[in-house]
């Protein structure tokens, strides 16, 4: 199909269209992704995550400004939550980056989570492939303002910037709660405000304990003021240093392998799920099963095992 060619030629219109197809799970999705797959793998993918309002979008805006100087083509995927009530979404990240919208070397796409948990949307991973194939050599993904469990971005990004800011509840309690585990480079934003030093100190303290025995692995912490465009160059330097270090240690390859592995697993289980659904038709049967269980006429494991066995026999897999 020629949409792939158009994307490779750099047509933003077709790229945008393809993103929608992926997002909408349209029938052409797999074909497009597979056709473009050989052209992927060249982009550096940076994830930007952190609590709501910590300044992620503002930071991305300033990173764009900074990296443009280096002749990059940059793609941004900005994810915002869909309303659980209406299914609609007000995709607000883009506003903070809007002044770049006239720049032909920048492509920004807002995505709604559409019910997907994990801080990104179900399609985000495929969308990065499209941007990658289209020649965007730096891709920045801004996640939804995360809590503690929404950390799917680790499976997607090469490197993760975890933003924190004073006055956002980014205190030591939150840090202990596990979100810390996902950051590669820590960004203390809003350094123009009181309390930023304190956030940094606490962060230092927690990381010092964590890396007590191997301090050389301690993650970098960078103070910036995204609003005032301060500290961005230093931040990006430390990002690139971090990557070089990973490469030297041979961890870069591992990281990418793990990513692919996780992705394959995900596609695999999703496909199995869909397949089962088609054959067993479980979405439709579910109500009947519930009845059986309510009336104690069936037990959960034996019911499911029975259904699965009959499917496997029918399809003559065994």
């Amino acid at each position, binding site marked *: 199909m020629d949409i792939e060619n158009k994307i490779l030629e750099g047509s933003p219109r077709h790229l945008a269209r393809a993103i929608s197809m992926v997002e909408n799970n349209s029938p052409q999705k797999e074909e497009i992704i597979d056709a473009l797959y050989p052209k992927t793998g060249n982009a550096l993918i940076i994830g930007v995550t952190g609590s709501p309002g910590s300044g992620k979008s503002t930071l991305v805006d300033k990173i764009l400004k900074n990296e443009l100087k280096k002749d990059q083509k940059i793609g941004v995927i900005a994810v915002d939550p869909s309303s659980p009530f209406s299914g609609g979404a*007000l995709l*607000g990240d883009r*506003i*903070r980056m809007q*002044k770049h919208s006239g720049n032909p070397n920048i492509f920004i796409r807002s995505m709604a989570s559409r019910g997907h948990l994990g801080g990104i949307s179900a399609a985000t991973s495929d969308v990065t492939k499209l941007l990658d194939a289209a020649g965007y050599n730096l891709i920045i993904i801004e996640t939804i303002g995360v809590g503690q469990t929404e950390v799917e971005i680790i499976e997607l990004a090469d490197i993760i910037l975890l933003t924190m800011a004073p006055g956002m509840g980014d205190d030591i309690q939150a840090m202990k709660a596990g979100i810390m585990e996902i950051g590669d480079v820590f960004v203390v934003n809003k350094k123009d405000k009181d309390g930023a030093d304190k956030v940094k100190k606490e962060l230092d303290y927690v990381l010092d304990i964590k890396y007590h025995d191997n301090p050389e692995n301690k993650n970098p912490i960078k103070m910036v003021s995204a*609003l005032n465009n301060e500290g961005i160059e230093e931040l990006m330097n430390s990002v690139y240093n971090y990557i070089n270090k990973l490469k030297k240690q041979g961890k870069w390859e591992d990281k990418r392998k793990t990513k692919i592995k996780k992705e394959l697993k995900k596609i695999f289980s999703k496909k199995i799920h869909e397949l089962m659904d088609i054959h067993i038709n479980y979405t439709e049967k579910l109500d009947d099963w519930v009845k059986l269980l309510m009336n104690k006429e069936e037990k959960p494991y034996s019911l499911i095992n029975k259904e699965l066995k009959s499917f496997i026999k029918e399809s003559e897999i065994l």
Partner: protein
Amino acid sequence: MSEYEKIKKEKKEWEEKKLNKFLEKAPERKEEFKNSTGEVERVYTPQEDIEDKYVNEIGFPGQYPFTRGVYPTMYRGRLWTMRQYAGFGTAEESNKRYKYLLEQGQTGLSVAFDLPTQIGYDSDDEMSIGEVGKVGVAIDTLKDMEILFDGIPLEKVSTSMTINAPAAVLLAMYIAVAEKQGVSKEKLRGTIQNDILKEYIARGTYIYPPESSMRLITDIFEYCSDEVPKWNTISISGYHIREAGSDAVQEVAFTIADGIEYVKKAIEAGLDVDKFGRRLSFFFNAHNDLLEEVAKFRAARRIWAKVMKEKFDAKKEKSMRLRFHTQTGGSTLTAQQPDNNIVRVAIQTLAAVLGGTQSLHTNSRDEALSLPTEDSVRIALRTQQIVAHESGVTKTIDPLAGSHYVEKLTDEIEEQVWEYIDKIEELGGMTKAIEKGYVQKEIQDSAYDYQKEIENKERIVVGVNKYQIDKEPESDILKVNPKLREVQIDRIEKVKKKRDSKKVEQKLAELKNAAEGSDNLMPYIIDAVKEYATLGEICNTLRDVFGEYEESIVL
């Protein structure tokens, strides 16, 4: 038993014996009646502590805390200034409209500028496409300003200019024009809006980031208190905050909070509160809820007096007086059945006058559609004149004082305003509160609720969600010449050819230098406009030094 207790007892009896029986047969139209402060009671009765607080809280006109008015005689002495905001198209056309209005009995001029002028772009800038001359007059160089005031004696009229981010430039041009007319600075009377904070909050015609904007403002304060002593250097505006959808309480709260920020900054810059304090003026909106509006104006006066006296230690009463201009509420006008707007404006005029305004602009019926025609402008002005000369409300001062409802509402608005002010102080002052998006969010939520109420018909807007008609009458509309941009561009080119470019460059370089340092910028700007530097050139010079503000949107 005190009188208050007697009333309380009687009220209880009335409720039990009369009211409840009546309600059983004939329930009220709604469960709850509301205004900006919350629920409105069925009837109000005298307040318990009125005797203790009358003198301190209500008092007398022209006396602290000015609840009843800022002058001892109010409209018995002099009526308010009737000042219609006007300006469109070219300087020539606007000049003609001003002369017309002065002939019709208007007593002050009020200049509206087009958006490129307000944001510091010349008409030939790419950003100006489609906007030149649309919402006001286009000013690019001193040449335009000379034409605008041609034949109007600047020592006689008072001129109000709705200009904010580039206020210093337009004031400089005004001073230069006056000089050419042979009128010295000391004689000039008028107002520049010069209120940048509400631009960040509600109106959107900002250029520079807050810190630099504040410096320009204090530079103007300082310059004028020495050189243009009769000039009102700022008009701290709640009008646009209300237009953006705030309620009455928020209008007062955020306006006063803006005022507090300006005073703080001026004091920090070393100015004497009693010297610039008397040159501060305010600008409010008048909506349809007549009694609430009156209470709003009274509360605003009382709060500002307390702010100046207690917070800033002002010593002179003149510094504590909240003098204000009012404009009837633009967003209350409907595009449907535009003649209904005449009635709305009449109610709003009453609100402003009963609230003790110093000057008033009444909107024209067709302003929801476009710029007003001459006919509509005349009706709007006549509305003021009818209230002034026929209604009788000007015979006595603050005639609604002592209304149980109005006094109670005045207190309630004041109380809720203080809560907002405290909250904003907690956030570190108004600039910080704006940067955080706090103020915008509060206003936006009110605006959303208001609109929802209209959609749900909880709030009736006549002609819009009730009493509609199928075919709207056709109306005469004023059209602005779409070729205007070319006319302006042509004029800029001519001016540029004629002026001494070397001198312009030199003056701009000096301005840049001064902006990088800490000199008062006014004299530099005046020098530059006199050499016919364009508004855009001056604003861009400052853009280079100060940078541009980035909107902090909250959704």
